[in-house]
């Protein structure tokens, strides 16, 4: 029986301290977060409200015409429950305007474009509001590359990036994310009927166990097979992690000088803070 630890009381304490510390040291006091109606953004927003005070958190709802109507209702539910301000910015006009020129674009291109459109809105709002963009990507999707580079993966600070989806669910319940949001099937909601698990072909609770042993516990392939995972599943997940490595790194810079950014010019992000 593989048990991923959740310790929600401790994780909550750590993440609230993380948000408060990492935001305040930049000289700012506020964050903006995209509220999709899903559990990840709901949790991020509620943790931020706890860390910074609800008045210092802005939730931005950015539906497209095909977004599920529940998504907006759930996002509003989160804003209401946490007491944060919310802002509605529909993205349908600009997305449709762009794809009028490329009518043959498939669902994935359209989905990526929407994710990046939302990113530009969040960064603009963050400047308008003197705030940082709060991330919502969890460890499962970051490892599997199930996110849009420079889209939903973009943020200034991310409290959830070291939590598997299983842990996000547990913490969300502890923090009081509305049950209907915790229980619903995860979806990027980029096109009608899309679900994460349907698209990826496996259940979060299953892949989280595999990832936990593979990444956190450094099990070898043989040990993973011994723990009951099929070789096909192990290889599929290993390939997804390898093939999405580029999404977790800065762009590759051609080395020319003696001192190249991030290779031999190494400073922490919190340099001087």
């Amino acid at each position: 029986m593989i048990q991923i630890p959740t310790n929600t009381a401790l994780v909550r304490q750590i993440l609230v301290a993380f948000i408060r510390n990492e935001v305040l040291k930049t000289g700012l006091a506020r964050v903006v977060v995209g509220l999709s109606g899903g559990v990840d953004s709901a949790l991020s927003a509620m943790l931020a409200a706890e860390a910074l005070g609800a008045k210092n958190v802005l939730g931005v709802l950015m539906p497209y015409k095909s977004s599920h109507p529940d998504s907006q209702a759930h996002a509003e539910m989160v804003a209401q429950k946490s007491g944060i301000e919310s802002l509605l910015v529909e993205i349908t006009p600009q997305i449709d305007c762009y794809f009028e020129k490329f009518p043959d674009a498939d669902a994935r291109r359209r989905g990526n474009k929407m994710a990046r459109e939302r990113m530009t809105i969040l960064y603009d709002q963050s400047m308008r509001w003197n705030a940082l963009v709060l991330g919502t990507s969890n460890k499962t999707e970051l490892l599997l590359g199930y996110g849009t580079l420079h889209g939903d993966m973009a943020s200034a600070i991310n409290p959830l990036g070291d939590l598997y989806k299983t842990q996000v669910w547990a913490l969300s319940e502890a923090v009081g994310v509305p049950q209907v949001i915790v229980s619903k099937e995860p979806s990027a909601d980029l096109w009608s009927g899309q679900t994460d698990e349907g698209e990826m072909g496996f259940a979060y609770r299953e892949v989280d166990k595999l990832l936990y042993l593979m990444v956190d516990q450094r099990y070898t392939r043989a040990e993973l097979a011994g723990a009951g995972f099929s070789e096909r599943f192990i290889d599929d997940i290993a390939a997804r992690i390898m093939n999405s490595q580029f999404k977790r790194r800065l762009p590759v810079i051609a080395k020319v000088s003696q001192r190249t950014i991030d290779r031999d010019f190494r400073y922490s992000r919190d340099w001087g803070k």
Partner: protein
Amino acid sequence: MSIRIAIGQVNPRLGDLQANLALYEQRIGRAAAENADLLLFPELSLTGYMLRDTVPEVALKLDSPEIKQLMALSRKVAFAAGLVEESADHRFFNSAVYFEDGEIRHVHRKVYLPTYGMFDEQRYFARGDRVRAFDSKFGRLALLICEDLWHPSTIYLAALDGALAVLCPSASPLRGIVDQQIQDDNARYWEMINRVYAETYSLFMIYGNRCGFEDGVGFWGGSEIIDPFGQRLAKARYYDEDFIAVDAGFEAVRRKRTMSPLLRDEDLDLTINELMRIRERPAAKPRLKRRPGWAAKSAKKVL
């Protein structure tokens, strides 16, 4: 002798010496106001921990004005600082410096620089090459920095060198979540070894950890003072700034060592002889395993 020991569990600014000097000054003032005799600051708390390429920029020579400023502050209260020390030949050390009555009484250069997993210290720091206890006006003390204490040889040497108390400046990151535990797994491990060391070596463990976050890495705080009987005299908050001060009677060392004279009975010659034997034993040297492919061929050449 009863002394009042304080720990400043601070959250320094990364790479900002002036801001952190101000932090030191404030905590030293508080220690003096609370009649503390001895104040411990965490590892690299004058500079911040994840320094990377700023190491040479924040390094201090022991004759620098900043060090002179710290020396002057030690007229109020004796304290141990955590900083980057630059030697005359321009090596950079992760050092702890003990200041007392306007003087530097001891410098410990971190010996075990973690360079694995999330740690990168040996890339930036030179390694210290000695573990020594030293005399202070309170009695004999030792300074060991964080990872040093994960190598039992360091505390063994400190105890045999006569330390009555070990001061451990630390920058211990929180990592590892275990269910049904109020602290992270790293904190659990530290609390275990602090207590075991205090009891095993019949001395005071004075553990000063920092708090705050650097690039998403949190430091768990939880500074503590453990007496030779394993009793926790004071405990700072987890994950947040704090300041603790407590009276510690060094006569407890005498009482404990009278009851359990383990150090008296320690057979130093036996240990030295066995260590010499182990050092010379072929098995202690890395052996080349024969493997198929290039490894086997290159092994033959080496042999």
